[in-house]
């Protein structure tokens, strides 16, 4: 994040103002007045609640004090110690949840990108029905989240769900209908549902990126005898890099913080194998009425995501170092 700001400052604040263009005289305060509304709203909607959350993580905000926050005793780092003490069940559960979330993110982001990339590459060529395929691919993304996931939860029911009907009764792949929403299968179900939801977004972004690659580049490379694979590797992927960098980051953050998928599929307490971090924090705050501990976990999550995002941007934007 910090590196991107260095580039504009080096050009924007020109030491010599351009003499030939007359601009309307602006009061010094004018630009600030323009963004004042945005700043106030940003403070109100984002910054203040975030600061309150950080403050909450340092007090013992349990059921005894929620009616009167000011009386809640200071906890110092107590909530953090409980959260990261991996020898206790709470710390162990948080670590487990973190591991599950990392694995889930890796699978969902990786496959979403792969599916999106493949579909976009195939749809680059014009053929009959391309338009309708494009529309079809975008349906999961366009559906309301709740409607989509609740339909999956019906399909994944053991006795009368569509999935078991097809696998057991029609195809005879399995002898006994398995549970898809409890035990270890819950993780697979959740990952499939999330993949179904998020790959159309990857597809949309990559497709848009591909359309800005000029045809001449492909033609020139074809003249030089590049194969389709070489074109894909060096031209498509190369020119898509800026799109991919942003896309993967967005998918990572969305998936890592995914709350809707486990909540709608499993309810407020998902099976152990599908205990994603955001719903785990929700459980610790609301189900156990311990908002201080929940806030501490959120702050830890925030720090982790900041570090990962910062490192990612540093690695993917090395050129800005030159500025």
């Amino acid at each position, binding site marked *: 994040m910090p590196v991107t700001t260095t580039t504009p400052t080096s050009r924007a604040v020109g030491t010599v103002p351009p003499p030939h263009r007359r601009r309307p005289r602006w009061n010094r305060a004018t630009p600030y007045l323009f963004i004042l509304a945005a700043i106030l709203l940003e403070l109100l*909607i*984002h*910054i203040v*609640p*975030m600061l*309150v*959350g950080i403050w909450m993580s340092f007090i*013992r905000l*349990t*059921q*005894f*004090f*929620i*009616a*009167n*926050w000011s009386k809640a005793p200071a906890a110092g780092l107590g909530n953090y110690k*409980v959260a990261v*003490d991996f020898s*206790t*069940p*709470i710390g162990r*559960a948080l670590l487990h949840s973190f591991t599950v979330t990392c694995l889930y993110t890796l699978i969902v982001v990786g496959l979403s990108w792969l599916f999106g990339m493949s579909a976009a590459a195939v749809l680059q060529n014009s053929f009959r029905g391309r338009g309708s395929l494009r529309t079809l691919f975008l349906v999961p993304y366009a559906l309301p989240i709740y409607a989509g996931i609740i339909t999956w939860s019906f399909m994944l*029911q*053991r*006795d009368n769900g569509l999935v078991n009907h097809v696998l057991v009764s029609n195809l005879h792949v399995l002898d006994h209908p398995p*549970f898809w*929403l*409890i*035990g270890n299968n819950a993780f697979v179900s959740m990952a499939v549902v999330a993949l179904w939801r998020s790959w159309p977004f990857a597809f949309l972004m990559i497709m848009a990126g591909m359309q800005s690659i000029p045809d001449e580049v492909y033609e020139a490379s074809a003249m030089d005898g590049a194969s389709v694979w070489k074109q894909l590797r060096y031209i498509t992927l190369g020119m898509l890099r800026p799109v991919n960098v942003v896309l993967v*980051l*967005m998918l990572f*953050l*969305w998936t890592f*913080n995914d*709350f809707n998928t486990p909540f709608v599929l499993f*309810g407020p*307490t998902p*099976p*152990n194998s599908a205990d994603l971090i*955001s719903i785990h*924090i*929700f459980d*610790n*705050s*609301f*189900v*156990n*009425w*311990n*908002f201080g*501990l*929940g*806030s501490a976990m*959120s*702050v830890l*999550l*925030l720090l982790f*995501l*900041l570090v990962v*995002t910062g490192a990612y941007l540093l690695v993917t934007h090395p050129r800005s170092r030159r500025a």
Partner: protein
Amino acid sequence: MKVRLIGIVVVLLAVFTTAACGGGGNSSSSSSASSKTLTYWASNQGTSLENDKAVLTPELAKFEKQTGIKVSLQVIGWPDLLNKILGATTSGQGPDVLNIGNTWAASLQATGAFMPFDSAALTAIGGQDKFVPASFATGGMAGTAPTSVPLYALVYGLYYNKQMFASAGLQPPTTWQELVSDATKLTDPAKKQYGMVLEGGSYTESVHFAFIFGRQNGGQPFDAGGKPTFTSAGMINGVKQYVDLLGKYKVVNPSNVQYKNGPEAPGDFAKGKAAMLMSQNNADNTLQADGMKSSEYGVVAIPAPSPLPAGGADVASFVAGINLSIFKNTKNQDAALQFVKFMTSPEEQAILDKPFTALPVVKGGTVNFTDNKAEAAAFAQVLATKAEALPRVPAESAFETNVGDAVNGLLAQAATGKAVSNSDIKAALQEAQDKMAAAGN
């Protein structure tokens, strides 16, 4: 990116924001004391939120006619109720009068957001003596002025399908051993028929049975000092008694572990897919909506093992039900007390118990929600002699979620074919107990 990061924190804070919004609307009504309008949050007792509204509206009109106090009604579904109450507690902006699940009474009392019913307040609502003692005892921690008074009472009973029992030549069970052997005889997985149906995905059901069977086996979830004792032999055996129905005796369809929305388990029973159902008496609504006549099922108390294990008690239910609380910072305390008096009057109880399939919480009331005399007698008998209140300690709500989730996990383990041993149960309950300790409960 920023939006997402902060989004997490915002999720956590959602309750405060929503509380602030919700409270904004309510404060106008509760602050204008002169206009005498009460805000009342009712829980969902009927077949739907609309049904509750339709039942309560004429009664509230009656109250306004009698006292000149207008009541603005909001019916809130169970999934949202506790969160809304927590929100109101946190922001200090809530209704004047509200329904709470009676097992939350002590936990909510600990927040200090509710008005204690001291002797003056009790006199104002018609005196403590008008209530059934077992129900009144659910109002708060023992030895304190309660912060809630009973409104509707519910208890567990064992529903059995008369026709299925008759054709197998069986009598309703009077001991747990009989229940298991009857259930075994009535189970035929090939015909998709099982002896018993459970709501195995519901943490509230699971914790209720952990308590009931734990008590039968001589366990107590909390010691006299209010410290959790989940891993006592009695509690472990109690949980085992429940989980064995599915794991060891296989008289329950494993799919039951996915049931958690309320109507599924009574639905299976009504459709003849299961011969027995352990449920609170408001299952009547669902059974009849699913086409079962009240003459087609019988109800007996959930039996205990015979002979009773050492220290065990013949407990067939906990005292379930709905209580009424008054928010401490209400501007209309007198009006609120009048409203509580009205709702808990014998006349209103008689009117409301029928559509809400509840037992009366006032003395001298008759069970009138069913035309099945034997059923009414059985439930009244359970409430009078075989029902114990859940522990009235501040950590009660944490006990419900942690132990309920642990038992759900054990049921899921049994359903996926892994035998549940005593040490599995002990480990699960130990973890629940450690979580309570580490979280400061």
